[in-house]
Each structure stands twice: as structure tokens, then as C-alpha cells.
């Protein structure tokens, strides 16, 4: 019985060993649109960043990323997020060494997030309602979603991915009355946003 279990444990290693190029590294740049920020339908944000991919086996890839996004929130506040994290990508089809044009994948991962909220009291028409306010926090987040590579060549791909990112930790919101102010939530809650990213990647 122990021998069977031992052999079963070795099966994943066999699949890695059969891959043509395990440990293949890619470099890429990404553009991201952030939607449904804080549950709101408006206030889309834009972001830019980059990533390194390290492929572990034929079907398994990892992505180590960093990006910076900014979006409006609650109408009068700016939210700026810096993400640094990693994801695991599992290819839903045989990659055929990236000779096929489309390679869809499931992606899931974790990141650390630095958020800064700036509440501007200027009305935008020259009137000011008080001093600007600023608050920031570090938090952790998980993200999961679907994506696909479009392989322009075996070494170059364009990837489109949609991931929902959920932040853990204390959140900020804006209270309008009696005066507009940034309020820190006392409880830890879940809040997130949909990230649609388009990237271009080169395999080294």
C-alpha cells in the first residue's frame, strides 16, 4: 500500500519531467481596467504594470506581478492601489508548446495591496469645503478568474484575463454628512473589484 502511495506521489514529477522546457521564464507588461470598484458601477480605474512568468509544467504556469491602479470612488475621492503578488495559471487545454493560437487558463492567486484614499474638498469650480484628507493602509487580497493567451508566435503572446480581486482587512468609506470625511471601518470586511488585464509577453 505504501509503495502505491509513493508511486502516486511521483506522478506529478513525471509530468514535469516530460515537459519540453520546465522553468521557462516570460516577461510581460500589462494594462488593467478596474471595474465595479467598491461595488459601484461607475468610476472605472486604469492601471499599468508588469509581470514575470515562470512555467512549472506543461499545464501549470505562475505569474509574479506588480501594478499600480487609480480610480475615483464615492464621487469625490481618489483611490490608488499598488499590488504586488503572484498567481497560478492552469491551462485548460494542452498548450502544444504554444503552437496553438488560443490557450485558455484558470488563474488564482494572492497579493499584497497598498491603498491610498485622497478626499478632495475642492468642488471643482473653485470652492473649497475644507482641507483635503488622506488615509492609507496595507492589506492582503486574493484573486481568481479566467484568461487566455493568444499566441502571435511560440515566444510572443497577448493575454486577456478577467479576475475578481477580494481585499481582506479594514476598509475606508466616505461619509457625506455632517461633513465629508474618510471613515475607517471598525470591522474587517470583504470588498473587491473586477480586474480586466491585457498583457503582452515574451518567452526568454
Amino acid at each position, binding site marked *: 500500500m505504501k509503495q502505491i502511495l509513493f508511486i502516486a506521489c511521483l506522478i506529478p514529477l513525471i509530468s514535469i519531467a516530460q515537459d519540453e522546457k520546465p522553468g521557462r521564464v516570460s516577461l510581460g507588461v500589462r494594462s488593467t*481596467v478596474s471595474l465595479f470598484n467598491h461595488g459601484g458601477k461607475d468610476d472605472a480605474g*486604469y492601471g*499599468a504594470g508588469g509581470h514575470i512568468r515562470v512555467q512549472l509544467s506543461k499545464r501549470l504556469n505562475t505569474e509574479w506581478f506588480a501594478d499600480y491602479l487609480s480610480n475615483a470612488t464615492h464621487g469625490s475621492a481618489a483611490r490608488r492601489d499598488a499590488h504586488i503578488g503572484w498567481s497560478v495559471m492552469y491551462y485548460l487545454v494542452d498548450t502544444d508548446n504554444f503552437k496553438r493560437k488560443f490557450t485558455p487558463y484558470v488563474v488564482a492567486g494572492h497579493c499584497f495591496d497598498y491603498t491610498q484614499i485622497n478626499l*478632495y474638498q475642492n468642488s471643482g469650480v473653485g470652492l473649497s469645503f475644507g482641507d483635503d484628507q488622506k488615509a492609507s493602509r496595507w492589506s492582503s487580497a486574493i484573486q481568481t478568474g479566467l484568461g487566455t493567451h493568444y499566441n502571435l*508566435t511560440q515566444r*510572443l503572446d497577448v493575454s486577456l484575463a478577467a479576475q475578481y480581486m477580494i481585499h481582506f482587512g479594514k476598509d475606508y468609506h466616505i461619509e457625506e454628512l455632517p461633513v465629508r470625511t474618510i471613515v475607517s471601518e471598525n470591522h474587517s470586511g470583504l470588498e473587491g473589484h473586477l480586474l480586466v488585464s491585457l498583457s503582452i509577453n*515574451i518567452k526568454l
Partner: protein
Amino acid sequence: MRKTTFLAALLIIVISSNAQTEFNKRHGVRLMGTLSPGYMLGLKESVVSLSGSWSYYLSEHVSVHGEGSYFLTSLNDFSRVSSNHSLLGGLNYHFKANTRFDPFLGMQPGAGFFTREGGKLVQYKTEVVPVISFVAGMNYYVGSIFNFFVHLRYLQSQSLEHLPVKMPLSEIRLMAGLGFNFGVK
């Protein structure tokens, strides 16, 4: 009229025969600098920047591309832009291999440095904004030193320093002129 038609036909024949000549761009570098007119779609302003870029060809089909742009002026009478510089970096995909005629598409996200125009009374601070950017263009390699180029770039970003007024900074930018290349033959 006949003479003009003949000359135009001759020019097309010369260019197309040149375009089919074997030409190696792998490990080559191209550099360019130009005045680039742009139109900011959201703000409806015509602007002019000084742009410079480089590309390094990893292969005949792929190049790494970096670009910097320095905002010079707005052509509108009442502008809301004091400055809007940008630094971009990414990759290009080149459709044709070993030809002088070199059409391509690319993606270069980066950072923008935007300052709102405040007139003589207000001095606004510069805001760093993430920029999404795509480029479509073509180069024509005259020889091993010069190339002609036409690049059309779309940039998407927004300024949030003046909320609740959001300032869309989307822009279409045209770059064209004569560039230098090294290591192509």
C-alpha cells in the same frame, strides 16, 4: 498628365521591389525623435509634444520598445493642461520578416505626469497617473542607417486630483519622420 502617371508607377515599382529585398532586423536598434501632434479626446484639446523612442529587435517579429514624451504646448486658447509628459515601455509585434517595409502593432503601458493649468493665480501640483497605451505603425528602412516611420498611438489615463471633476486624459498622438537604425542589414 502621362508623365506624372509614369513617374508614380515607376516610384511604386521601385518601392515594391525594394520592399521585397531580404533585410535582416534581428538584434537591430532603431531610434527616433520627433515633434508629435496629438488630440486629447476627452478634453478636446490639440497638443504638441516632443517624443523620442527606441526599439530593439529580439527577432524579426518582436521588438522591445521604450518611449518618452515631453509636453510642449496646447494649441487651444483656454487650455486645462499645463503639462502632460509620459514614459512608456513594452513590446511590438512586427508582421513581416526580412523586409524593408515593417508594419507593426504594440502595447506600452507606463506612467504619465500631468499638471493642470491654473493660470497665474493657482499652481497645481503634478500628478503621476498610470497610462494604458497602444500603437500601430510602420517603418520603412531606406538602408542600414535611416528609416521613415509613421506611428499612431492611443493613450488612456485620467487625472483624479480635481475630483469630483474627473479629467480624462485620453489622447491620439501622431509621430512621423526620419529615424536612425543600427545593426540592421
